[in-house]
């Protein structure tokens, strides 16, 4: 890890909603080209960490990306810097078409030729979306919406994708499909920070992982190590 360059680094992150502390002094790093999984139960603070990185909730502590401190950076500019989030619940614009949803993610981009190329890429990766181009986002099935959400993040041309529960509400077949695509995107050069309750699948594709409990990191290690850890086995992998 230390040999590689730190792309995203979070140190001593604290997030509070009113009097309730959701995240207590969490620190971790993500290196370029990695898949890092944050696993934990409901309310462990996983989503709060992603939201802080994207700049949509206030926090204390520091988060830096490519050496730049993100605290004073507006959410829309963080995307332009190269961090795109697929929010929990997907955040699809239901009354806009699939095409419009994808186009919105290119808001900050001026490079027309590359945008056209990225459209092709997304439609190759998700042929389903190409078929439904002119359908409203709200009319898609859950799996298609998840594909659209990931496709949108790719359209923003970010180097780093933050995925918040991509397997939520999907059938086992679709879950496998989504994880296969995540691994594929990672192979194509994107860094991925994955937040999941599905520990089994995510540790499988992740190079490294962190286990969160009530807002603290309690365990960390490579994906393999964590899968072998008795505590993880008992709590998240069903024995």
């Amino acid at each position: 890890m230390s040999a590689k360059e730190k792309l995203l680094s979070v140190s001593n992150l604290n997030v509070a909603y009113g009097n309730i502390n959701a995240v207590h002094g969490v620190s971790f790093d993500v290196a370029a080209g990695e898949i890092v999984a944050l696993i934990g139960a409901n309310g462990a603070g996983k989503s709060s960490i992603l939201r802080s990185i994207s700049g949509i909730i206030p926090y204390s502590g520091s988060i830096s990306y490519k050496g730049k401190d993100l605290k004073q950076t507006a959410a829309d500019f963080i995307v332009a810097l190269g961090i795109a989030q697929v929010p929990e619940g997907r955040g699809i614009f239901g009354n806009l078409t699939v095409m419009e949803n994808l186009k919105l993610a290119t808001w900050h981009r001026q490079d027309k030729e590359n945008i056209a190329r990225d459209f092709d890429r997304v439609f190759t990766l998700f042929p389903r979306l190409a078929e439904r181009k002119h359908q409203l986002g709200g009319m898609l099935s859950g799996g298609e919406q998840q594909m659209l959400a990931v496709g949108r993040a790719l359209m923003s041309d970010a180097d780093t994708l933050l995925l918040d529960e991509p397997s939520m509400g999907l059938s086992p077949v679709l879950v496998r499909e989504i994880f296969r695509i995540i691994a594929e995107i990672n192979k194509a050069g994107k860094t991925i920070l994955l937040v999941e309750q599905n520990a089994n699948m995510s540790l499988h594709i992740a190079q490294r992982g962190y286990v969160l409990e009530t807002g603290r990191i309690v365990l960390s290690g490579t994906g393999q190590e964590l899968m072998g850890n008795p505590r993880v086995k008992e709590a998240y992998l069903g024995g």
Partner: protein
Amino acid sequence: MADFYKNILERWQNISTHRFFWPVFFAAGLAFSIVASAFDILDLYLQLILIYVGINIILTVSLNLVNGYMGEFSIGHAGFMAIGAYTASLLTVNVFPAGALNYLFPLAIIAGGVAASVIGLIVAIPSFKTRGDYLAIVTLAFGMIVKSGLENIEVIGGPRGFLGMSKLTTLPWVFFWTVLSVWIIRNLVYSKFGRGVLSIREDEIASDLMSVNTRQVKIIAFVVSSFFAGVAGGLFAHALQFINPRMFDIIKSTDILIMVYLGGIASIAGSIIGAVIYTILLEILRPLGIWRMVLMPLMLVLLMIYRPRGIMGMREARFFVPLRDLLAAKLWKQKNKEAPDASA
């Protein structure tokens, strides 16, 4: 008989998908409005109603940009209208030379719009610092502040109002400004900027995560909306030749809101339909006197029960939809018909 209607419908669909008809409609409308007002084909009362219809279309379309497309709730549109009305009137009465008024009138209208949009900017900057329903409260207060402010400035007549404007708002001018406003707002809605506006209504946080600068988009949309309210105010003042602060109170703002929701949110065609129906109905029901103030809300209640999204809610007449969208959707439908896919 059924064939006859079908035929007409098909004709209309053809017309509405050919952009060649835009300039034709514009030229025909302009010619009609010039002829009608020059040769007294329409009596003055009818002309005045048409002028009100035009002004109300401008007000409705511009408010729809904020309330319908962007999903925020602004209730101070009459305040911006008042600022436009007073600015334009002060210019034509006190500043511009009387001999050149006819030529300087567009300038006065634009000045009214600019004044309203500057105030709009001042209102928008603090209101959009936070998310949520603050805009409704701020604009409500703003409308009241404008009214009491105008009532307390003696130089412009205070509560007695301001007069001395010549009748500069003619049918052709109203037609021109109405088409211009509708055209500009329609183009705005179907631009990249418009997609940003829509995404704010759908999900503001997701919109932020898509790199849309939501605060900037909201401020610009609000400023554009206030500009056209100011334009409408300037036209209104020179149609009536008399304005007083009471004309621009909360009732007027409510009128505009009713037209927006009657016609349907997020629809240009809906705004036009809503403004036309509401304005004409108010005139037709005039003999009922105070009872029409009972009938109109009743109509609104029934509308909300049976058609909660308004006449054209969230839909658009093909006439206003960009050709590339119509074409793309048509091709896509054809393709799907040829190869019906196994849907999930």
